[in-house]
């Protein structure tokens, strides 16, 4: 979802895959991206629109994804939850005095 948000309207399967790869530094399968986006759509966090990208080589329309209002809410909630959980926390490794 963060990748979809970052891509600001330019999010489709392969661009999301590339974004995750670039940001998180790990390789993701295109199938996994599709499957995840589909699940998010089922939950109503993202919505997809078919539109001609103009750059695609075969001229075929692509499915672009963007965040819905409830998707934005969910992201913000997750982010706030994370920062609340982190605040004031200092980590120490176990087994050391």
């Amino acid at each position: 979802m963060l990748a979809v948000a970052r891509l600001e309207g330019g999010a489709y399967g392969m661009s999301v895959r590339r974004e995750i790869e670039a940001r998180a530094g790990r390789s993701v399968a295109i199938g996994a991206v599709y499957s995840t986006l589909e699940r998010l759509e089922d939950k109503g966090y993202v919505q997809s629109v078919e539109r001609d990208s103009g750059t695609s080589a075969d001229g075929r329309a692509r499915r672009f994804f963007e965040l819905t209002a409830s998707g934005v809410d969910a992201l913000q909630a997750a982010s706030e939850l994370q920062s609340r959980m982190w605040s004031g926390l200092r980590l120490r490794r176990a087994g050391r005095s």
Partner: protein
Amino acid sequence: MPLPHAPRLARACLSALLPADARSSLLAELDHEYLTHVRPAVGRLPAHLWYWRQALASIPSAIAMRQRRRRKQTVNTASPRQVVPRQWLDQSVQDVRYGLRSLRRRPGFAAAAIATFALGIGANTAIFSIVDAVVLRPLPYDQPHRLIRVWSANPRGIARNRVSPSNFFDFRDQATGPHALESLAAFTAGDASTMRGRGEPVRITTSMVSPTMFALLAAKPFHGRTLGQSDALPNASSVVVISHQFWQSRFGGAPMAVGTGVTLDGEAATIVGVMPPAFDFPSRDVDMWVPLPERLRSGQRSANYLDVVGRLSPGVSPETAASVLSAVAARIEAEHPPMKGWGVTVTTLHESLVGAVRRPLLVLLAGVGCVLLIACANVTSLLLARGISREREMAVRAALGASRGRIARQQFVESAVIASFGGLAGLGLAWVGLQVFRASASVELPRAAAIGIDVRVLLATLTLTVAAAIVTGFAPAWRATHSTANDSLKSGRDQASGRSTRRSRSILVSVEIALTLALVICAGLLGRSFVRLTHVDAGFRADSTLLAQVNLAILKYEPEVWSSFASRALEAIRVLPGVTVAGAGAPLPLSGEQGLMRFGVRFEGRPDPPPGQNDRAYLRWATPGYFRAMGIPLVEGRAFADSDRADSARVAVVDRAFVERYFPGADPIGQRIRPTNEREFRQIVGVVGGVRPTRLEDPPEPHLYVPQSQNPSASLTFVIRSDGDPVRLAAPVREAIRSIDPEQPVFNVRTLEDMVTGSVAGQRFNARLIALFAYVAVLLMVVGIYGLIAGWVNESTRDLGVRLALGATPGEIFSFVIGRGLRLAAIGTAAGLALAFFATRLLSGLLYGVEPWDPVVFGGSTLLVTIAAVAASYLPARRAVSIDPAGALRGE
């Protein structure tokens, strides 16, 4: 050039698994990414890997997406027409997941089955890729079925002799036309030449070719032009065409190479063209093609040194062409009496290239096919054994309403899952094996450059995998569907079906034993034949001896100076520390060098033989010291000495085979003879031991040696015997030869032992590979027997316990179990012997000094297989002996 495209197989796999509505957009994005970003960035192979990784890693998600749709569908209810195929696919997906789960539950079973398949499929893939590239695939020329080879057939029944230039030109002029040949071209297989012009002089391989050859093969130049008809005319300026590889290595791939002048064996010539990288006719070794001059037309008709290739006119069969060429040969025969009895042989070009290796390769293919069959038998046996323990599970499924078809399908899907993993691992094994094969390069195979894993090989692997899955899935599926559900549910121990399963497995294991024995016998025969071959007395001593070859045909060397170069170089070599004796000769026996020729021999005081029936002998050159350095024994008289000079009495040395054939019961010393390429007679001064003409398996043939000083040879091999490791002498010997002329190239520096070993590399390769297959087969067989007997002991614990309780001694139990193994072995070996009797006929042409029914090999192999069978039953027998009768009975 075809446009780059995504790996088809990966794309098809992914496409099949994706739900229809997501398919086109996902694949379009993946392809687009592949074509526009990944492939331009990293190149073809890494991009392929990337695509495969993407496709494989997407499979679980594709399945998940499919399932999500199905869940939604239960709400929306699809139309009934769509349900059936979708249900089928979903069930298959379920079966695959179920198969994967049950494999994961039994990692030992999974590993054994997958490893067995990997061995079988991998070995088959590797051998298939070799056979495909060398034998099956059409030649890489335009319309290859129209290409033929033409040979001269001599009156003594040898069908494939080279053709003399004058005969070739007659064939070409009289047999081309729409009724026979479109064109005919001649070439020499490869001559050692020395090129000067850029940097140091180098030894290169040239091929003299008719200019029509390029058009005949439809070969286009990479740069410049090919040779033209006018280049062969008497007053034409000398031109040459070079190979792509030579262009790269010598000219760094610079286009200005075309038009450059070089000096080839002392003659100025101009490079007019570069051939493309794939053009390797007649062999990869050729660096340069030079035109075959028309003036050779007036040469001797008995000088056969050209290879001839032709292109049939459209619609003409090789047989028709052969009869037209025979008519020309008959005309030549009528006009030139010495050609009496000479005819023509025509074969297809493909046959001439691969005819000699076809049989060994097919034998290897048969052997490796055996390994796959054994592997399949083993996996089937494993599946059946596992089937017993799952019988109740199947019965429950049947009772809950699973159809027979569904249960059978699940079995097939499971063996397909195992076979797929095995096939993938096998592909990896094959790839590694081919790398090793290429790196070893000890075997000269025609068209070896084309060997690799490509679409055809992948298809073959896929076919093998599918076949293996079906073959191994059949018996378990049949068994699973034919056991009555009721019985299995009632009986706690699956007794009855266990017995009948065991019978099926016993048959399988007996088949394994039979196949293994046949394979071991074939390996034994080839191995014994190879050992025989290496124990053949080559006629010389190969130890502690170094060879170094030179070709003296450089501008400043005229034939008169060739002999003085040899003696001066030998003087310099003989004073090196560690050298005991040195000489030089050409061509060396078993060296595979060009230039070994058979000449007619004339005897003083005997009438010339009638035309067509020559007394003949192989002609070799030697310097003083050559026979001692080679370890060729002097039987009678003397060897060549420094006193045999160009201006002294002409002398010759002959070998034992020569004396036996031409002077039976007479003293040859002092007799006068001459080879037909010389005018004056020579006096025989000595007799030496015989050597083989070209191969160890050839019988000794008459040889005639002439001294280098009296009839110098341009190509010469120095033979240096040392008192220690001969390799240490390599650098000093090079130095010594260079001290006579710093520009003289020295090549083929190797030990005499290496040369002899190299001459039997092909046979060693065959014997080793078949032996490897036999090892694998024995290993699989032992595993199969062990699995069967151990399973039986497990199931019969109670039975054996009762026997022990009733007073059977451990010895009796032990031999009872071993006896089961022996009984299997007896049935298997009987079938195996019968099988081997037919299989070994395939080998008859490949054996040397061993009969196909060699009793030692047959007996030894049977013994070996029987011992292996007993060894495989040993552990289960030990286990049976250690059964505690009370415990076994209580266990009930």
